């Protein structure tokens, strides 16, 4: 008696065969030479039929029950001569309610017969599909938001990064160790990550860091690294899990925003200072003018009136100078759009020296310059003239009378920027006291034809309006050094 005949039998059927028939699995047997098949009761049942309800034949099996796309898989699995081990394949079979997924385990019994079992795995297959879809969705989403996960096994010093995380580092393979990961972080941020990981392993403290890393292809980007520790009942860290995200774009935008905000703040401060100075200076002239005119009205003495009038003239002159300076300051922003030209440093510098010749001779100053490292600059000629003129006349004005004045000026290029260093051995500036006021429009300039306090203010504004910056270093009685980034 074989299993395949049992459905013909009644309750006297041996227990084992009964039991097997009731298992939620089907058994089939195929005689390869005669193509004769046998199906167990379970086989019919699992396909949703009663025994004998469908034709039990090789042709029916291959042509109708097995889905046509899975036919090749089935035929290969039964045709293989060499296979003695059970072979597992997955097929779609036509059940009474449509095609469903089955797991088919085939075993060669002897040279002629092949037997197999089928189990319905439709539900699992569906779950698998769903899972695959979800995980595809997750990894696509992760890739889209440049987001990956990572894990550390602290006991083994092992690190695992998800594919997306590796992608952020532009890496193909996993890191060998935590130390190697840290090597990818830019030097200034390395200690941060090292301490955070050590701390997380030791105490289980979670961390959250924004770090600069250098990817395998050498791109420096901002990444966010977060981690939490899994701890055991004794608080010991078993595992660290976390995320890695590429936040470069956001971070760069944030930095741009910060820079803009600073610029706006600076401009605002400058405007406020400007308004304050304007009102201050104009007020002092207005006050003096009024005082003088009153005195002039009241005065009877001709000599007195003459003197008062001379003062009024001098107020008028100073006012004129001040208004000119203020106009110059106001027009800086509008003239920055004028045409830039290629300027030869040496030629322009010599012109300025020539213009200040009498002052230079008078003070017996030595002026050294070297523009060989960077001979030309693309700049507004009027600005560069004004910058050199202001720096030179400042040095001449604030020289130390006890020693001959030596001025040096040179240009150079660094990191694609053009710099000028201008240095003198004059009286210097007390940086502790006046450091923040050097470029400010701070000093009043009434009664002062030299109008001190305006020159450097204009210089700074001209430089900054073209995107550069100016810094000063100075020691009292030793000298002053200006470092200018032109472009």
């Amino acid at each position, binding site marked *: 008696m074989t299993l395949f005949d049992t459905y013909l039998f009644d309750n006297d059927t041996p227990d084992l065969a009964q039991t097997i028939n009731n298992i939620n699995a089907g058994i089939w047997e195929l005689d390869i030479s005669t193509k004769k098949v046998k199906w167990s009761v379970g086989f019919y049942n699992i396909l949703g039929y009663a025994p004998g309800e469908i034709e039990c034949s090789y042709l029916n099996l291959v042509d109708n029950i097995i889905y046509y796309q899975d036919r090749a898989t089935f035929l290969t699995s039964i045709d293989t001569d060499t296979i003695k081990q059970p072979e597992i394949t997955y097929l779609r079979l036509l059940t009474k309610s449509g095609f469903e997924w089955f797991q088919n385990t085939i075993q060669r019994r002897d040279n002629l017969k092949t037997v197999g079992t089928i189990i319905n795995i439709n539900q699992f297959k569906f779950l698998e599909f769903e899972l695959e879809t979800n995980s595809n969705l997750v990894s696509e989403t992760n890739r889209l938001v440049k987001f990956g996960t990572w894990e550390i096994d602290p006991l083994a010093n092992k690190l695992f990064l998800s594919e997306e995380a590796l992608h952020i580092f532009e890496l193909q393979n996993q890191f060998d160790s935590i130390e190697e990961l840290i090597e990818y972080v830019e030097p200034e941020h390395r200690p941060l990550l090292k301490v955070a990981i050590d701390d997380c392993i030791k105490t289980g403290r979670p961390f959250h860091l924004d770090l600069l890393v250098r990817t395998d292809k050498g791109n420096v980007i901002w990444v966010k690294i977060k981690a939490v520790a899994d701890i055991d009942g004794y608080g010991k860290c078993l595992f660290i899990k976390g995320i890695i995200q590429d936040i470069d774009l956001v971070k760069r935008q944030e930095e741009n925003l910060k820079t803009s905000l600073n610029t706006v703040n600076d401009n605002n401060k400058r405007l406020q200072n400007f308004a304050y100075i304007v009102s*201050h200076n104009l*007020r*002092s002239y207005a006050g*003096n003018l009024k005082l003088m005119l009153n*005195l002039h009205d009241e005065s009877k003495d001709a000599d007195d009136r003459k003197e*008062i009038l001379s*003062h009024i003239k001098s107020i008028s002159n100073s006012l004129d100078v001040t208004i000119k300076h203020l106009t110059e300051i106001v027009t800086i922003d509008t003239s920055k759009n004028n045409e830039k030209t290629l300027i030869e440093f040496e030629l322009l510098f010599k012109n300025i020296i020539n213009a200040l010749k009498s002052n230079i001779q008078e003070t017996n100053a030595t002026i050294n310059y070297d523009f060989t490292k960077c001979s030309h600059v693309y700049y507004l000629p009027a600005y560069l003239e004004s910058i050199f003129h202001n720096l030179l006349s400042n040095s001449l004005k604030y020289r130390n009378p006890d020693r001959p004045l030596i001025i040096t000026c040179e240009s150079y290029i660094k990191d694609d920027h053009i710099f000028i260093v201008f240095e003198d051995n004059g009286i210097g500036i007390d940086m502790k006291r006046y450091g923040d006021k050097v470029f400010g429009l701070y000093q009043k300039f*009434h009664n002062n034809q030299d109008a001190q306090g305006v020159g450097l203010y204009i210089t700074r504004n001209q430089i900054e309006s073209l995107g550069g910056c100016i810094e000063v270093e100075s020691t009292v009685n030793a000298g002053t050094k200006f470092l200018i980034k032109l472009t």
Partner: protein
Amino acid sequence: MISTAWIIDDDDIYRYGFRKFVTNKVLCKNLFDFGNTSDAIDTLTNLQEALNLPDVIFLSVDMENMGCWKFMNAFEIFKAQRSFKKIAIYLVTSSINYLDIERGHDHPDITDYMIKPLNSQQFIHAFEDSFLTKTA
């Protein structure tokens, strides 16, 4: 009438106008003017006779190198070393910078704060008030 007034201001024209005005109106007997703080500090510390001390000082806030506050510091030291009559100190400025105004109000030795241009009424009041304080 008060006897002595000082003006410490580096604005030559203002000093000239001030002197003219005070002389014309005959507001005090002696007027000393100083174009910078150090001269004023020197004179203050070298004064032998308390009698020669000024009754009122007009001190400009707008002088270079924070001259005004240098003078105030020197005045504190001087005051701590010697006892003398009440001196009215008016801080004069053409600025409307509120920080300076705050400092002016906080300082116990500063009588008041005046903004240039001063009109004649303010001038005369300052002299009269100092006189009243002195005699009170």
